[in-house]
């Protein structure tokens, strides 16, 4: 993981350290995961935006006064249902959900990569962060 020192002196420290080439591969996979998530999310948001703008000539509502979003745009089942019926705002929210899921997926990937490295301290660290994220995403969706 990360940028482990490549000198033999350091690489020998501790057991289960990977060699530099495996490190590089993990870094590249993580980069690919992040890029793919962002691009896919942006594409879905753009498609949803196009559908929404095409169907609404006039501005919808005002942002001067906070009212909060209707329930179908703030829960996972609601968003999926709206997106499946090709509703513009539903598609945008689906893209944004995917965007929020991208760093979460990165943490899950890290947990796996650390486990592969047999670095149990960091497996625990990654799983803890994942649990905090799950708690946040789960709150209010019950």
């Amino acid at each position: 993981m990360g940028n482990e020192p490549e000198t033999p002196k350091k690489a020998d420290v501790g057991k289960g350290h990977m060699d530099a080439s495996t490190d590089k591969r993990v870094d590249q996979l993580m980069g690919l995961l992040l890029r793919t998530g962002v691009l896919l999310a942006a594409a879905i948001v753009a498609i949803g935006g196009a559908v929404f703008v095409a169907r609404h000539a006039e501005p919808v509502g005002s942002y001067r006064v906070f009212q909060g979003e209707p329930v179908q745009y703030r829960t996972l089942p609601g968003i999926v249902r709206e997106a499946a019926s090709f509703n513009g705002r539903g598609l945008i929210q689906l893209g944004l959900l995917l965007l929020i899921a991208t760093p979460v997926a990165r943490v899950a990937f890290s947990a796996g990569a650390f486990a592969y490295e047999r670095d149990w301290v960091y497996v625990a660290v990654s799983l803890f962060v994942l649990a905090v994220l799950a708690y946040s995403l789960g709150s209010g969706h019950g």
Partner: protein
Amino acid sequence: MVEFTAVIGFGSLLAGFLGALTGLGGGVVIVPMLTLLFGVDIRYAIGAALVSVIATSSGAAAAYVRDGYSNIRVGMFLEIATTIGALSGAALALYLKASVIAIIFGVVLLYSAWASYRHQEHAMDVQPPDRIATWLRMDSAYPTANGLKQYHVRGVPLGFGIMYIAGVLSGLLGIGSGAVKVLAMDQAMKLPFKVSTTTSNFMIGVTAAASAGIYLSRGYIDPALAMPVMLGVLVGSLGGARLLAGAKVTTLRLVFSAVIGLLAVEMIYNGFAGKF
């Protein structure tokens, strides 16, 4: 709706461009822009800024991780502090008045502008190894013009504490708190500057995701507003990063830092005047 989307989108593009150029990030410019210029309620502004922060930081992190600058162990460990902080911040946002949030935002913005103006890449003395950092295997190396350079990490508890505050601010204000994160790693933990900024960037997406879930379920994230903001900031920051890599932009950065300082003062003033 086309005009509204286009205007917000263009403004966000500029904000993303400016944010990348100053190193402040797009989110920090989005909130004053939406609230001061377009009269958007600060809660919608924070929701929209938060998703744009995830987009830009994840996009940029992809490149930094691949190039081997980010210290992933340091990042992962400190994400414990930032995600718990972000949860606290998002919970706090539900109880604070909008004007109070605006004032805190202004103060943080002012600090960020000052920090980005002041921060220069400085030569770092070689640090002796530290017990906690060694146990956590944080010591690493990063690429320089003269090949890989080793460094030792220090001050883990202090860095962890500052990161919690960075997380609270991120969750409360919908920003990446890059300036506070860099403070923790660069000043407290003595990481090389380039490693601090790229690792900060690496962490911002996860920190923002921790509060974004709460904001989404509370109805702060409006699709029609978040769509042009997220796409605009993403495209703008990609352009800004490209320009930053090629050109010398010291004067430009100075001007932008001043503009952001002015926005900060206006937010603080409006907050005290009760205009939020």
